[in-house]
């Protein structure tokens, strides 16, 4: 709960020992200090795709630099369209371009695509099954700027939209693989984007992205963490931590939220005696957790227990990302603590 805006934070003022974490620039890197990263994987992958496919064009709503589309703009200036800070127009014009045979790659922040431009994606693009790829930065809680920029419910909104494929990639290598894969898929796609210096996580697991496929990154006897996006990175870190305490945690990575790979999820959850935890960088309402729960219910598959790690049904606070991730329970430390608690229940 936020304190009243009329109550001064006296404990911070004139206190040399005050917390040093500050809200970073708009898009903080989610990479840890020693973590290997790759810069702007989306921008480079799209530029490479455009070399091979004349249909590819890139559209920005005044956020090229913040969606890594500036890399594409530099590589293919004549194929870059600046639509201005006008997200409705961004989606409408992409629909018009797709009707004429181009493959528009549309970029903005996830909040603006979902909340502001929903009707235009729904009717102008999805209803017509047009070949438009919508790639959006700042998914879930990846900025400390508060609710105006935190897309905590984008997946809940977009899951309800027919025809739309939804991708939530985990790391730089997955983004690089997802770009050509979703280009080859004929129809509208919404992809959550990690931009800037994006961690490299999945290569050590021999992982390859396949559209529509969930993949087991590591197996575990005691619990299975089902996750997407950056939470798969956190889940892998948590599994390593839990191992030190003798807890064997598996991680099932589900980058395609829709259509959901129910067969793989059900097969994993049907294995007896495991706690199933769904971890997502999204409100617990309407995202991967509820999608998995409904799938289990429909199929009479009963894990030992089912729990969700995700953002609360609330407008979240502003602040430094590590603080916020801890506060809302999606940091590695918090995941470890909660899974231990649940296993002790």
């Amino acid at each position: 709960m936020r304190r009243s805006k009329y109550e001064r934070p006296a404990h911070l003022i004139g206190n040399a020992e005050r917390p040093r974490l500050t809200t970073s620039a708009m898009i903080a890197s989610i990479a840890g200090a020693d973590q290997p990263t790759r810069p702007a994987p989306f921008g480079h992958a799209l530029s490479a795709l455009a070399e091979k496919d004349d249909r590819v064009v890139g559209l920005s709503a005044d956020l090229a630099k913040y969606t890594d589309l500036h890399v594409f703009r530099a590589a293919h200036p004549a194929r870059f369209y600046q639509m201005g800070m006008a997200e409705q127009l961004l989606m409408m014009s992409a629909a018009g371009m797709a009707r004429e045979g181009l493959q528009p790659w549309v970029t903005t922040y996830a909040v603006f695509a979902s909340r502001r431009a929903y009707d235009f994606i729904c009717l102008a693009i999805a209803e017509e099954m047009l070949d438009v790829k919508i790639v959006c930065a700042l998914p879930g809680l990846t900025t400390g700027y508060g609710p105006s920029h935190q897309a905590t419910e984008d997946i809940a909104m977009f899951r309800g939209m027919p025809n739309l494929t939804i991708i939530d990639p985990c790391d730089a290598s997955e983004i690089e693989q997802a770009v050509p894969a979703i280009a080859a898929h004929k129809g509208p796609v919404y992809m959550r984007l990690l931009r800037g210096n994006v961690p490299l996580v999945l290569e050590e697991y021999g992982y390859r992205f396949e559209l529509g496929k969930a993949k087991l990154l590591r197996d575990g006897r005691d619990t299975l963490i089902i996750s997407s996006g950056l939470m798969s990175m956190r889940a892998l870190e948590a599994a390593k931590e839990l191992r030190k305490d003798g807890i064997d945690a598996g991680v099932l990575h589900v980058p395609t939220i829709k259509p959901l790979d129910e067969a793989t999820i059900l097969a994993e959850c049907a294995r007896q005696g495991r706690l199933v935890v769904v971890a997502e960088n999204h409100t617990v309402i309407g995202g991967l957790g509820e999608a998995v729960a409904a799938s289990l219910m429909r199929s009479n598959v009963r894990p030992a227990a089912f729990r969700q790690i995700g953002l609360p049904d609330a407008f979240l606070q502003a602040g430094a990302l590590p603080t916020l991730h801890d506060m809302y329970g999606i940091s590695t430390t918090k995941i470890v603590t909660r899974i231990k608690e649940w296993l002790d229940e």
Partner: protein
Amino acid sequence: MAQIGHNISLPERARRIRRHALRMGEVQGQGYIAQALGIADVLAVAYFHATSYRPEEPEWEGRDRFLLSIGHYAIALYAALIEAKIIPEDELETYGTDDSRLPMSGMAAYTPGMEITGGSLGHGLGIAVGMSLALKRKGSRSFVYNLFSDGELDEGSTWEAAMSAGSYKLDNLIGIVDVNQMQADGPSLGVLNFEPLGPKFEAFGWFVQRVDGNDIDALVDAFDKARQHPDPQPRIIICDTKMAKGVHFLEARERNHFLRVEPQEWAEAIRIIDAGVTA
């Protein structure tokens, strides 16, 4: 230019479009017939003077694109597409019925010649911007026409598109606004005052003409000027039209956004339209 029927006058085309629309309205007993009667002259000039298309090949790459943003005007566009022989005339009796290719609100997936799905108002002009940009990219010389309504001037998305078209200097984009002064809640200017409309579009960088949308000679001149205008800017034809034009007892109704018409009145309306070619 349309390749068919040069011997048939534009007023006669407009009369037939009104007649087709009335016959579809009769199938449902109600509908957006006043808009159809009001815009018939614009559609006659668009389809039988201004635009290029092939009736037997509705998706011919060289066609001009004619987008209907106002989905509920579908009855009017179907009438024009029937007259243009893109849709067979005998299908009008299926208007709005289950399994018909002619649903009450226009959708691209249902109807040959229907370029976009309208109905969620304020979409057409932005889609037209994207198509115009793409046609330029392809080196096409086709025009993109977007027919939208004075009611759609309430939508912010229309103005995003208007600013973008001016910014990109889209000289292959021709907007047509039907100013019929009637919206769902009543007279348009009372719902939200969009005037002065011409100066607004001029300020957004458009070549603006404002004409009596029920004067065929004026429309022919305006469409010609819109296509031939030499400057690199989008073009708009603001058409002041009369709701239910040509059927006096429907013109006289105060609230005619969605008309309920008695069974015997349809025959009377068609008789009036048949009687006065240039009425």
